[in-house]
């Protein structure tokens, strides 16, 4: 076996290298000149440098959502074709974009998120105008159908127990029922209906007292072993696709 692969030269490149070494230098200089002559223009634009950060909230409390499931759109007009700058909210309801200064229009498309976003009389999502010059932090108010109040997550004897109160926020004609509530656990901080290792679900019909819902879920064998899990409660609203969640909590045992 020939395993000295660094010196292995099946096509004898080394011979070619030696022969052309004399001419090569001139080419390198020439090439460098050409590159320098076209490269000395400055770039037209600076990179975007203004941070737009914020969160979706209701009465000062973040709306907790699922990772990569609740998108919003930013539009900037005046540059020819119009398309959205699509982004998603982080699981804790915050967002962060790096943008150029200018005027942006912010919307959350219909049917996204476990909450109501204001609509125009025609039924289109209403626009929030954001004037950006330098960094900016905004709180975006939305009205959720439900809020998960006083979530308490605890671990004991290989089980995670969660108790909470489901408060109905929207009680007018557009009120919606609870389809189900679930307690999720996962090995990482991404805990949701999609990302979990175990889940317990109680359907809306089986909830006797929304002010005191209690569930528990058994922790399965963790491979590789770890001495903690992340847990979270999710509430599915009938007729609404996205769930509203409680904050993710790390539980060590």
């Amino acid at each position, binding site marked *: 076996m020939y395993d000295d692969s660094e010196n292995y030269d099946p096509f004898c490149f080394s011979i070619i290298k030696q022969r052309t070494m004399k001419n090569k230098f001139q080419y390198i200089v020439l090439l460098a000149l050409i590159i320098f002559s076209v490269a000395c223009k400055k770039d037209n634009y600076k990179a975007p440098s203004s941070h737009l950060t914020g969160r979706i909230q209701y009465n000062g409390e973040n709306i907790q959502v699922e990772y990569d499931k609740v998108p919003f759109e930013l539009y900037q007009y005046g540059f020819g*074709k119009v*398309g959205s700058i699509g982004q998603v909210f982080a699981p804790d309801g915050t967002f962060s974009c790096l943008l150029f200064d200018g005027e942006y229009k912010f919307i959350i498309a219909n*049917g996204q998120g476990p909450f109501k976003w204001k609509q125009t009389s*025609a*039924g289109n999502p209403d626009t929030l105008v954001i004037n950006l010059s330098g960094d900016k932090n905004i709180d975006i108010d939305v009205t959720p159908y439900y809020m998960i109040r006083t979530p308490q997550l605890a671990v004991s004897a290989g089980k995670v127990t969660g108790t909470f109160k489901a408060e109905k926020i929207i009680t007018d004609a557009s009120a919606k029922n609870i389809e189900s509530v679930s307690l999720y656990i996962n090995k990482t901080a991404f805990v949701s*209906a*999609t*990302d*979990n290792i175990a889940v317990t679900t109680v359907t809306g019909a089986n909830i006797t007292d929304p002010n005191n819902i209690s569930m528990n879920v058994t922790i399965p064998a963790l491979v590789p072993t770890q001495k903690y899990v992340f847990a979270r409660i999710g509430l599915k609203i009938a007729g609404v*696709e996205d769930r509203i969640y409680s904050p993710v909590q790390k539980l060590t045992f």
Partner: protein
Amino acid sequence: MKKIYLYIGMASLLAAGSCKRDSEFLNVQPTSIISTDLAFENSSNVLSVLANLYNRQVDFSTVKDWATMADFSESFPSENGRANLVQRNSWGYGEWATWDYAYIRELNLFLERLEASTTLAAADKAQFKAEARFLRANYYFEMVKRMGGVPLILKSLSYDFSGKTDDLQYPRAKESELYDFVISEAEAIKGDLPIDTKSSAVFCARATRGAALAMEARAALYAGSIAKYGAGTPTVSLTGGEVGIPASMANAYYTKALNAAKQIISGSVGNYALYNKKPDLSENFANIFIDKGNNPETIFIEDFKLKSGKVHYFTGSNQPRYGAEEEEGGRINPSLNLVESFEKLDNTFAPIPIADGSGNPIYYTNQTDPFAGRDARLAGTVMLPGTSFKGRTVDIWNGYVLADGSVFSGDDRGQQKVLPGTTGLRQVVGFDGPINAKEFTAQSGFYLRKYLDPAIGSGSRGTNSELPFIRYRYAEVLLNAAEASFELGNTADAALYMNQVRLRAGLTTPLTPADITFDRIVHERRVELAFEGHFFYDMKRWRLAHVVWDGVKMTVTDLLSDIGKATKRNTQPYALWPFKYYNPASPNDGKWLYRIVLPSLVTGANTFQMGNYYSAIDATVRANNPKIVKQPNQ
């Protein structure tokens, strides 16, 4: 003196050649481009143009690309480059989109130029026109299934370089208007299309009266179910009707679907019948897709022909790999989810029996035993372990189960090892796998049989296959009629239509009208039409997609319960692996046992979001034409 004639001769030749005007001299017609006049001069030229348009039809599933059949947990894709099909958690909003207005424009141009042609025979002209209108309607049908209402453009549009494009910007038509268009076009053209006499095998590669009616039946059925079941998902609609059909229109559509289907069933548009030529019912079912000579079941196909350039390599991609012509294949592995949904011969649903009541494994003498007594379509659709293809038995088993229940296996195809307590090497894993993450092995424990061509050379790169892809077939027409009858409240007729299809599958006990439920309709289409491009659209139009693909990982309990239920979760493809039992002290030594496995590559769970019901219209399209409204929930 004689020379003078020569000079005169040469001079006159020169003069003759130079009397062209300069402008004419430069005006040379290209020889490589056929002018419009020439193309539409006689019927064989027109047919050539039309052939190009035929060739550009769009199918959801096609034998030209195996991966188009591999999604939705109905199968496991046994090619590591495609593992994302089972690793992703959701589909992008843009997935499945089609927006080929260049094709629409060329169909419109074809129709206009055909109309202008004066040299064609009237009968030829009428047929060509009807064929082009069929193709246009069929593509609009394909678009409305994926995109909802789209701009309905029925003439060629041209830009006049004025800088204004307003007159070229069409808004989206209503979803119902698209379906109405498909239905009315089918009615308008059917008289000009020939009746398929089945005298020639390739007849049904072109539009026929039966094809137009089959398209009409399917389109009306889709529209009816969107109207009816769309009521359950009010968020999947737009106020302008571009997406969503009012529930009040459902019955009218179902009636149209039933009438169109009945015309085909009555035999008035051609001698269509269920394929019934082989005594072995599974072989008979597989043969529907293989038999090109006088096949009464096919209504409209995409044809292929060896040595013509138009061939496909579906067999090569999916054949049992061991001992195959190219030593490659094995890609589509039907999932246990699909396999167990084929019912038993007494019309009941049950999991594949692998354990007795107290949880002990059942030992089988023959590898095919656990699948015995089931719907013949199972073995006709799926290559079960222990069955054979091209005379070679597939070698699917994962390893030995030892007396203590542990598995002794290998990590390469047909690997040999020494079993504990023995001497000498022996094979400990099948040559066709299954081995986790080993591509091209039967990782779900099954291979695909549907569309696999038994002809010699079909699995060889130099030859390929000429099996047709069936777009419309008679069994689907019967099931369309059954569904439309059921939705119109006539369960007796529904049972009558459905029982014909079931009888051909060996289910000899007929279903009574009381047995016909929505679950039955859903189930029958799933098993009869598996891998034919229907499953996904069916789930969409019944608004079941977000229910069965709800993003929740499946447990084995999920897998084994509620078989035959329309709302059964189907988010991850499960596998059923055969093992050999090794325990010389036991009478079961050497027998087969089975275990349910989730292939290790399956890490995602299908999530069908509400925004997936209608594929996103590209931002560029919407920027160019602000009249296009966005899809709901995106």
